[in-house]
């Protein structure tokens, strides 16, 4: 009999506690107002303004950490990826900024996890991002110095080979001169002009 009363009392106290706690959670329920960004294009920053107010809309919640997620899909795997975080200011306003890199419909979700609650508060919406043909990631390597290029090598090589060919032409000149010595009657013009 006594144990039955004890259990019953415990149950009542437990229920009250739960009710009180649940009630207090009810009382602290917040309101997430999301103002999605406007026209979005890949590569330009997207800013989403989120206002965090208490449930009755009366007081702003400042200093709250908000996290932004996006539903992503790549190579057959889908899931949520974190896009950014922000902290609300004294007006309960936070601006979540990120740079969309994928075109198409984005399922966004902003989440607020209060310190004394286990369930996060969230708001979801969808926004479309227009694509672009401009490559955002430019892979760079090496430096460009005007004038320092492969053509220098080509020019040096061409010069050297030109000089070598001129040497070869000298040999031909020797052969030609030798023929003229054999035939002294035919006086070449060069003999007359070139020796002085």
């Amino acid at each position: 009999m006594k144990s039955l009363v004890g259990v019953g009392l415990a149950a009542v106290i437990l229920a009250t506690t739960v009710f009180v706690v649940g009630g207090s959670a009810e009382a602290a329920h917040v309101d997430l107002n999301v103002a999605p960004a406007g026209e979005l294009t890949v590569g330009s920053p997207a800013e989403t303004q989120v206002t965090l107010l208490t449930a009755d809309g009366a007081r702003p919640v400042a200093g709250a950490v908000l996290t932004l997620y996006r539903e992503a899909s790549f190579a057959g795997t889908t899931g949520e990826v974190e896009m950014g975080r922000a902290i609300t200011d004294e007006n309960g306003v936070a601006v979540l900024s990120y740079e969309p890199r994928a075109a198409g419909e984005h399922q966004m979700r902003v989440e607020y996890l209060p310190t004394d609650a286990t369930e996060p508060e969230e708001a979801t919406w969808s926004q479309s991002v227009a694509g672009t043909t401009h490559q955002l990631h430019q892979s760079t390597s090496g430096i460009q110095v005007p004038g320092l290029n492969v053509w220098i090598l080509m020019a040096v090589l061409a010069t050297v080979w030109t000089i070598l060919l001129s040497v070869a032409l000298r040999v031909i000149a020797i052969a030609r001169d030798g023929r003229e010595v054999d035939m002294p009657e035919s006086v070449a013009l060069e003999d007359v002009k070139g020796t002085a």
Partner: protein
Amino acid sequence: MTGRNDGGSGASDRDDTSRESAQLPTVSRRSVLRLFGMAAVGAAPLILLPPVLRKASETGRVESRGEPATGPDGRIRQWTMIIDLRFCDGCQSQGTPPQCTTACIEGHFAPEPMEWIQIFEQELPGDGTQFIPTPCQQCQNAPCVNVCPVGATFHTPEGTVLIDQDRCIGCRICMAACPYDRRFFNWGDPPVPPEALLADYSTEHQVPAKKGTVMKCDFCPDMARTGTLPYCVQACPNGAIYYGDIEEDVATNGSDIVTASRFLSENHAYQLKEDFGTKPRVYYVAGHGEAVGRDVYTEGRQPTEWPWIERAEGSRTWKR
């Protein structure tokens, strides 16, 4: 005959200073111009020769492999890999040879003893060890691309580095240049299973291997283009390897998906031998397999196996 008139070498006329000062030939400007003009005309064909030969020899550009892989709005993918070492224990807990290496070898019929992705065991301060799966780092300032004399190793628009085994002359300067030990040479007839010989060779799928040429990890570009993850990424039982696209800023290991830039920054990712300035596309998150329960002093790992070694009986293999 006095000595004076013999020979034409200017250096021998020491005593006559006027002749010494005229070391260079005294010729008219016209004849010099004529000489150089003729010589230039003679030299010009040498420079024109290679492009002419190129045109004549080509039936099609061997290096081209089709369109570059693009995202949904047509921007070209920029492949990257992020390897989370907190999840790599060298497959010690699996009791198997490293599965990334095994899958890569099987998928590409990589000849023994090539490990295109290789697990190195690095000593840590305090004498613990960590395992570092090392694929080709796909450097943006690739030493191998820089030194190749015939352009057989080249960059793709996606940022990957591939090899054209039909053009490679086997000089191996790229192997000397690679600072990560990621290039492998077919010293003899490559020991590959018979089914490999049936494959259609392309630079994106280096099957079958060709004697006297260089091979390496290629980031599986043919698979990635169709949205399939590379063999090593799929095979890792712990999901340690992420494959992603920097352009779309997303990466996945097959089950988890992350924003690549955030993942790299939040986890303080690093690159191998960053100081060399090779600008690799492979990033590492520090760890030693702790996320899958490995203690840093755990020793022992299964050696890699090649499934077709028995079927390649009689072919000359070589030491790594």
